[in-house]
């Protein structure tokens, strides 16, 4: 008989609903030990003892810092010792509390060694890597916030990818045609709102399956933007598909801070907008009347109805607002960085954003953490490709998606969605 004997103290049902078993904690510990072994063998013993890696740590307008030059072998071995120590601590103590923090520290140490190894005999612009992490994470933050808005009212929004595309397309077109970038932002928001409203209408008015409606909207947006790109944008590229982009603007003094200054405080409006939106949604969701009602509707709509809350109105409002947010996030793809729309340019990042929301436990700041993780993996794969580490670049570019699959399939612990998430509501 294989019964898992568990004492109640082995389980911590965190307030957010994540259940961590001591077996999982031990698994994390073993994983860190394996990483430490890789670090010693591949990054330590596997490189010439005189190999050096250089990390650039400064960019304008921050106060300059000297580049960091490291002997790869010895740094890797030192970091391996740290990683092994953390792994051993998890194995021996096997306590859930703080286990994710310890695990995260171990993985960070591993990535440091990996970068040192990849940049051996070469120079890595670490500062730029961090900046690109933030840039890559920005649309994910918008997408995840859109998901939070919808699912915290009980509607699953799997159409974020479609709303991204629609926002990116219309943002580029209007931004280009009018020459006013802010008009592009508004256009992106409108495009997202239209498809949010469509999702809400089909899901709430007709009780259609939300997953299927969402997938159909993505397919529709993909097809429509592809067609219009070919028929409209390409022939009139110069007028309709050549918007400029928002340029970075520094926040005085803060952007002078070494390392973090340029990363956090020398960015464009989309990044600052995401930061503001994060705080607004987080506070609104957990501190205001609107948030309390939305969460009630996502957890137990009938209970909300019996105290006089109009379930469907709350859902319509949240889903349309969620569409607005995703549409702005979409616009950031074109008028935030690249400066033109091309077919399928969002490359499934709408789904990655949804995964970030789940990994972030349906909380804005949790989603931010997840978005930064995914953003870092996107930036990491592009830098590793440049450094030519010997892994074929198609494999490297899978990194963000592999992490997404791992996250969604529950590798990182079970999470509890809102109880009525995705369930149509009717009164009788």
């Amino acid at each position, binding site marked *: 008989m294989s019964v898992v004997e568990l004492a109640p103290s*082995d389980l911590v049902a965190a307030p957010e609903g994540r259940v961590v078993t001591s077996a999982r904690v031990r698994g994390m510990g073993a994983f860190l030990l394996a990483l430490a072994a890789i670090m010693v063998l591949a990054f330590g013993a596997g490189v010439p003892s005189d190999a050096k890696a250089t990390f650039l740590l400064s960019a304008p307008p921050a106060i300059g810092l000297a580049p960091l030059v490291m002997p790869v072998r010895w740094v890797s071995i030192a970091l391996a010792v740290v990683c092994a120590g953390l792994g051993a601590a998890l194995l021996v103590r096997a306590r859930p509390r703080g286990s994710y923090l310890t695990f995260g520290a171990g993985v960070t140490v591993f990535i440091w060694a990996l970068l040192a190894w990849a940049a051996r005999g070469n120079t890595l612009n670490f500062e730029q890597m961090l900046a690109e992490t933030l840039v890559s994470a920005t649309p994910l933050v918008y997408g995840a916030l859109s998901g939070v808005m919808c699912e915290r009212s009980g509607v699953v929004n799997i159409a974020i990818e479609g709303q991204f595309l629609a926002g990116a397309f219309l943002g580029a077109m209007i931004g280009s045609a009018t020459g006013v970038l802010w008009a592009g932002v508004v256009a992106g928001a409108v495009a997202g709102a239209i498809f949010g409203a469509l999702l809400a209408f089909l899901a709430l008015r007709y009780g259609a399956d939300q997953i299927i409606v969402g997938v159909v909207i993505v397919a529709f947006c993909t097809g429509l933007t592809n067609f219009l790109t070919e028929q409209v944008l390409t022939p009139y590229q110069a007028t309709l598909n050549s918007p400029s982009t928002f340029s970075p603007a520094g926040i005085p003094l803060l952007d002078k801070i070494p390392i973090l200054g340029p990363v956090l405080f020398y960015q464009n409006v989309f990044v600052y907008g995401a930061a503001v939106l994060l705080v607004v949604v987080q506070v609104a969701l957990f501190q205001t009347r609107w948030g*309390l009602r939305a969460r009630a509707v996502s957890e137990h709509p009938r209970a909300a109805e019996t105290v006089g809350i109009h379930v469907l109105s709350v859902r319509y409002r949240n889903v349309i607002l969620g569409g607005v947010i995703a549409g702005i996030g979409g616009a950031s793809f074109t008028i935030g960085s690249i400066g033109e729309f091309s077919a399928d340019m969002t490359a499934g990042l709408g789904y990655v954003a949804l995964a970030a929301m789940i990994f972030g436990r349906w909380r804005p700041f949790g989603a931010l953490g997840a978005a930064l993780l995914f953003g870092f993996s996107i930036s990491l794969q592009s830098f590793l490709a440049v450094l030519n580490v010997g892994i074929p670049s198609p494999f490297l570019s899978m990194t963000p998606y592999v992490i997404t699959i791992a996250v969604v399939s529950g590798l990182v612990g079970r999470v509890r969605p809102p109880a009525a998430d995705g369930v149509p509501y009717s009164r009788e």
Partner: protein
Amino acid sequence: MKLELAGITKAFGPLVANDRVDLTVEEGEVHCLLGENGAGKTTLMNILFGLFRADAGEIRVDGETVHFRDPGDAVRKGIGMVHQHFMLVPVFTVAENIVLGFEPVRRFGFLDRRRARADIRRLSKEFGLDVDPDARVENLPVGAQQRVEILKALVRDAQVLILDEPTAVLTPQETEALFKIIRSLAASGRSVLFITHKLKEVLAVADRITVMRLGRVAGRTTPAESGEAELASMMVGREVELVVNKKPAEPGPPVLEVSDLTVVDERGLKVVDHVSLDVRAGEIVAVAGVQGNGQTELAQAVTGLTDHDRVSGSVRLEGREITQASPRQRLRAGIANIPEDRQADGLVLPMTIADNLVLDVYDQAPYARLGARNLARVRAGGQEKLKEFDIRASSAELPVSTLSGGNQQKVVVARELSRPVKLLVASQPTRGLDVGSIEYVHRRIVAERDRGCAVLVVSSELDEVLALGDRVAVMYRGRIVGIVPPTTSREQIGLMMAGVDQGAKDGAGEAPPAGDGERAGDGDRP
């Protein structure tokens, strides 16, 4: 506040749930609405609370006609409702649940949690409703959740409080505490409309009583004017027997032996905790307990419906180890199962009565030959069973979903008792049934016992447990806290249901000591 319902009529398709119902609740009175399941009580209350709209009739508050389009309207007119299934958000705190929809806010819609807490503390003190505003509702016992529901209505200044079957999930002690609260509410000038099908409670708490039957008002009375028998016949429409007639048990050798059984749920928490229990041939062991204390999981482990890797310990049938046996092997070995939720687990609703009657043996002679079903035999067998088990249906070819709850349950009983049965496991066998069907099901269960079958009954209705059981096992938090004779006082069993262990020292009366409470938890591992 005086509340009048006049001529309320509501039909769902051909079914008339409420037919010209009149009901008047005076200020400061406790008014009981008594009726069987399906008599139309809940429909009437949902109309009063704005969840359904009546086809005809009107609602008057202090003489003025009102129209409720949604519950919000009803709440604004001073009507509060405690639903049978609590309307609480499990992951919210008590305070969040209470103020939901009625939130005190500061500027920009920010919640004023301090004021919410203060309001709740004041009202809990006034009416003796003890709750912690910062506790999460999902961590509270059912009795406390009910107090939260009552507070929710009081915060909105409810003058008429509707309680829909409020005692179904309570221990006798919690029920007594609820009655105290009800009286203090009435004393403060509020009215309470108490909906139930339990006669004892009506007589204990009501000022006036309205009895409903088949959607109509069947009579009005007061506790002073009538006793249980009168109320029962008014509710059912004929004389009913309130007690189950049965001879003393003649227990034979043990049929079911459960030892050191532990079941964990999906999260790894123990829901059945080292339980040991014997059921002998020719006796009924009734498992009592407040819902959710592991009885369901115990029954499922015995019938084989739990994943094997969540079960440890041993289950034996006539000495044979069946802990790892599949449900099919168990039913072939002679276990019959009347499941708790007949619509989900007992029947395939869209299929015909005849097919449902052979779900267990459809692939065996005479219902199948060489892998092909013998449909003529199935049909003929169905017709016979309709007669034999008094199933009221014009044909066995109708979908089982067209039957009433009582007749659906008879289909389950008919199927399960048509096999050679050594052990009958019956979970909540009469939940939601009319009095006639309850009598019938009880008689069949006792008849099985008299035939020499071992019977394990699980019920959260204390009346049923005491009426059927030859021995009563009380469960609390997954453990059997004691096994006592059915002559034990309700108060003592109530205490045991609340976790106070008293069973062991009283012994098990005429029952053999093998299944005594002292053994619970120290059984031998296989």
